[in-house]
């Protein structure tokens, strides 16, 4: 097992290198002078050419591109993503601040997603062709298709603006500091309800469909008929023989949600003014804040690679058919 993990880790090194390289060159594809981006936030101010030259030197922009690339590689390897053009702060600090907020949201959303999605998926597969199954299938298709920003806005409209049950945005109330410890917790939870619901329900719709299809696939396998032929109870057949096999691909799906966990949801975070990774990225794109964009996009990609790795390792751990020494090629 250890050998397998090491091997997979080593194999992903060139991939990560490719991601870092691609990010760098995509950002430098930008037409025009990077200095323009740097100065854009305060274009109103007249800046001396001398100052610009100085800044250019400071950020190494006077160097040829391959030298810049190598410098960037070195810095990234040390966890240094440079300084935000706009906020004039190290990108790393900003990321460290944003991640916990994103995690609150995404962990809860994934739990909701799994609870609802897997349960509904199983029920509708076991009761295939029933009214319930049809409703679930079409319902999940519809929910999955609704654009999240519109769903979020409509929920805000109904539950926050009109009914006043939940806050419209932010992570905490204005009077947060005056609350007791329990009051603070409740206030936080209260602010989490709507964003978590929107994120979780969309995920659950996808999970339910996936779970249903996987379980149906397994239920059509001959070994399920064979299990019935041995006289087991239907419950035993489904729980012991079918679910165990159907859960394997589901588990790996959650392994692959790693980039979502840390990368957050750009649109939902923006709508709910949630100070996480997603909103950081959107803000940076709007303000052309290159160091932040490069950092978040790159991190999201690296997390995808790690997520796939995690998924494969979970796969190897739960499925006896996968041997650790000969990795599958998909």
């Amino acid at each position, binding site marked *: 097992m250890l050998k397998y993990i090491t091997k997979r880790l080593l194999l992903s090194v060139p991939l990560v290198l490719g991601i870092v390289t691609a990010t760098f060159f995509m950002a430098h594809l930008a037409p025009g002078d990077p200095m323009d981006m740097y100065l854009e936030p305060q274009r109103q101010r007249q800046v001396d050419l001398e100052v610009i030259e100085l800044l250019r030197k400071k950020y190494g922009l006077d160097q040829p591109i391959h030298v810049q690339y190598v410098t960037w590689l070195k810095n990234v390897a040390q966890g240094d993503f440079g300084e935000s053009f706009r906020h004039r702060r190290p990108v790393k600090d900003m990321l460290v601040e944003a991640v916990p907020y994103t995690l609150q949201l995404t962990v809860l959303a994934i739990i909701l997603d799994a609870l609802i999605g897997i349960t509904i998926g199983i029920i509708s597969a076991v009761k295939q062709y029933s009214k319930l199954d049809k409703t679930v299938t079409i319902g999940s*298709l519809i929910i999955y*298709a609704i654009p999240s920003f519109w769903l979020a806005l409509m929920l805000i409209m109904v539950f926050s603006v009109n009914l006043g049950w939940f806050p419209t945005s932010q992570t905490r109330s204005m009077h947060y500091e005056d609350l007791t410890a329990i009051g603070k917790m409740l206030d936080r939870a209260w602010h989490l309800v709507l964003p978590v619901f929107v994120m979780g329900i969309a995920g659950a719709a996808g999970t339910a469909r996936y779970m249903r299809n996987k379980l149906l696939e397994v239920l059509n396998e001959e070994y399920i008929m064979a299990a019935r032929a*041995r*006289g087991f109870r239907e419950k035993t057949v489904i729980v012991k023989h079918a679910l165990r096999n159907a859960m394997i691909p589901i588990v790996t799906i959650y392994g692959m949600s790693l980039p979502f966990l840390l990368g957050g949801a750009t*649109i939902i975070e923006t709508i709910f003014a949630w100070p996480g990774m997603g909103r950081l990225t959107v803000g940076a794109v709007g303000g052309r804040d290159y160091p932040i964009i490069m950092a*978040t996009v790159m991190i999201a*990609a690296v997390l995808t690679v790690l997520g796939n790795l995690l998924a494969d390792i979970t796969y190897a751990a739960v499925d006896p*058919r996968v041997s650790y020494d000969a990795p599958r090629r998909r």
Partner: protein
Amino acid sequence: MRPDDADRRVRNRSWMPGLGHMSLGRWGRGVRLTLFALVVVLLMAWRWDRFFGAFSTPFIDRWIASVFLILLLAGAVWFSRWDVGRILLTDGDATKGKSPWKVAMRRFRENRLAVYSIYIILFFYAAAILAPILAPYDPSAIPDVMANRYLPPSWEHPFGTDEFGRDLFSRALYGARVSLSVGILAMIIAKTVGTIYGAVAAYFGGIVDAILMRILDVWIAFPTFYLMLMLVGVFEASLLVLVLILGLTAWPGTARFIRGEILSLKNQQFTEAARAIGLPAHQIILKHLIPSALSPVLVTAALAVAGMIGAEAGLSYLGLGIRPPTPSWGNMVSAGKDNLLNAWWVAFFPGGLLTLTLISFSLSAFFLDEGELWAVDGISFDVDIGETVGLVGESGCGKTIVAHSILDLIPYPGRVVSGRVMFDGRDLMRASPEQMRQVRGGGIGIVFQEAAAALNPVYRIGDQIGDVLQLHRGMNKQEAWKETVRVLGEMGIPEPEKRAKSYPFELSGGMKQRAMIAIAMAGRPKLLVADEPTTALDLTVQAEITDLLEHIQEQYRMAILIISHDLEMVAEMSDRLMVMYTGRIVEMGHTRDLLANPEHPYTKGLLAAIPQLGAGSDVPLEGIPGAVPDLLDLPAGCTFHPRCPLADADCSVEPPPIKTVGYGRECACYKVRMRT
């Protein structure tokens, strides 16, 4: 057939869309066609100045809208005439036909949700193209702001007005143009790039494939929306750039899929044939490979368009895609997000249209599965204690269904409509689920065709046997394990302790089959049903398995029903033999007698196909002409008559009943008389 001049009159009438259909009594389609044409004409008349005036303006989009209206009318006339002609020619029998395209269309039409979705999509696209004609107001002109600001929906402004007093209905129509065209264009780019990339990688293989796939791996690692965000940040987003960005971030999925498809197609015969004639590489790819892999790509195209429209809307909502004042559904929703309390309509309507579009796309891509119908009919046989009965027939004649029916294992939607399965004096078809479970695995054991598929891959062999022992023989865990090892040994598996701890995938084919038999035997059944027990195995292993079956039968004195297409194997093992054809038993008798004197023409044909078992040198060595008919489309009367050398007119009326024709011999054929 109608007389010719009547036909001509109908044809002439069909110049008026729908009129021809109505005079043929096809009211539904006729009324719909007429209404459609009427709406188009009314639209032209209602907006005559815009419709006609467009041709004196230099704006290409207004031209397109007017030309589109004309095309709609022309299309209605053409379709009306073409369809009437088709009905007259075929007498309206258009629903028949078995080409894959027609089957797909029929299945699609049966799914009403999918049909409505397509209508909605077409309607939206038509509305988008016709926006310059339909829109009551100029989408960008700002009238008297103070007087028109935030007007709620009314007849004058169906969707209300926004903060600048612009008519939201008109803006939504123009927004549809942006959103829908971005979706289609980006999808086309993504699919084209992906298809070419995947095809090139797969066709050239080797180093080219390796490099291209590594690049793809890197590209795929970037989460799509993040990649879009980054590119939108890097490039100033005009409409064209946005389309390119969306298309170029979404292609890797297609590339991977196409590569996989082509790799599997590549080794098929037609590619080799094409290469043998000396066609150059790109021609082989374009002419042979892409069309065969293309249809699944097109099926996913609808979903891809939805994805693109959604992504554009998301970006525009964030202010990073289409920017105001150009309307797009995404930025229109965004414009309403801060005034949900006082002007809910600003965000509601554009978002609602967007949602409806996305839902329609995903529903239209959602096909219902085709239901299957199996037919096994009029089968009656018995198996006595200690006896081996064989059931033979060509593949696809329903043998396996018989095996599964005995234990009521037919998967939904199939079911046993009528009949009895008597076991130990009890009708299994009427047994309670509880009783049935006792019989399954306990009274009757079943050996499946493919051990590899019938063994649960995630449980060890020993556990799978142990479960049966605990269930049917009331053993506890330790006893069950001991017995498991003993049974495995009895089945001729070397090192049974070790093998019991193995997972199915760790065993060879023959071992798996032995393990299967061990599971079936674990409950000490009185009847063992063996469905093609040796088909998937090597010749030498086949012999071992038949020996094993004979051995355990002697030991436990049970009955065996052995089912196979392999006449030789079955003949060797069985005491009595049944021959099955298209779901019916056509002949049965004692094995030796039946082989020596086959009565039914089908049995004769089967035997003639096997030289060493042939009844005599006077029977010429040949197969049966023709193929087993489709069970969904059986010939009338005796189902064998199209292939039968003895058949005459009587044979195609009623299916022959099975009747006794000799000692222990039954046969279902009009041409076979009682032996004397």
